[in-house]
């Protein structure tokens, strides 16, 4: 188990409880990886831990994903947003063991348009959350999975 700066600060602020104590030097220099959010087992907790709030549906967020994913191990997804000042974009799969899939940090100059591939354990709602100007916006889509991609 490892910790990073952001999660340490969060842990201290939240409860004062610290779990694990291995400090890996390179990780400190990098952007923070929010352990609590990635380990969270329900979407609401993950969203709260990562972004500190809940998102509202917005037409300015586009989530492109297949209606039916034949293979849950590789589900192509594209997230796009026409909002200004996008800071980050995150993808959640509601019914995965850990709903938070990935968080993209979008620096100024980079388009709010990212494609990637996810794993989905079973049919679930996929939600993209875009943080822009400090506010959270989302778009969701139900993706049917015929063969799950989690577990073996």
């Amino acid at each position, binding site marked *: 188990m490892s910790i990073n700066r952001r999660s340490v600060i969060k842990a201290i602020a939240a409860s004062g409880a610290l779990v694990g104590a291995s400090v890996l030097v390179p990780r400190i220099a990098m952007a923070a990886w929010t352990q609590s959010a990635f380990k969270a087992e329900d979407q609401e907790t993950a969203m709260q831990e990562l972004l500190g709030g809940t998102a509202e549906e917005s037409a300015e967020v586009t989530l492109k994903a297949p209606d039916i994913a034949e293979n849950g191990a590789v589900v192509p997804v594209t997230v796009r947003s026409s909002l200004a000042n996008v800071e980050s974009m995150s993808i959640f799969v509601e019914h995965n063991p850990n709903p938070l899939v990935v*968080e993209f940090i979008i620096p100024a100059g980079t388009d709010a348009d990212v494609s990637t591939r996810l794993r989905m354990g079973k049919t679930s709602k996929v939600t993209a959350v875009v943080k822009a100007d400090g506010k959270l916006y989302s778009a969701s889509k139900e993706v049917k999975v015929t063969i799950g991609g989690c*577990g073996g």
Partner: protein
Amino acid sequence: MAKGILKVKAKVSGDKTKVKLMAKHIMESGQRKDKKTGELIPAKFLQELKIMHAGKEVFVANLGTAVSKNPYFAFNFAGGAAGDDLTMTWIENTGETATETAKVK
């Protein structure tokens, strides 16, 4: 890691650079069981990926275990010219890390 795991195609298109990137990595989620022993296979996945261009971050991804095997990312950033270097750093959950470079075409 002697050899890089990242395959990158970066191409200038107008005033932007389009980047397509694939990491050769198993992305073991820590939730699969070994079929013989029935024990969980320990997690081994890429946790962070950072791409820099001309000393500036252009893309950062914090990955969870539900990113597919051999993670793929596509994004665009403003600026960039043919021959420029992209510096990419990745960190695995095991603490392993490496920095690789690729050229913009």
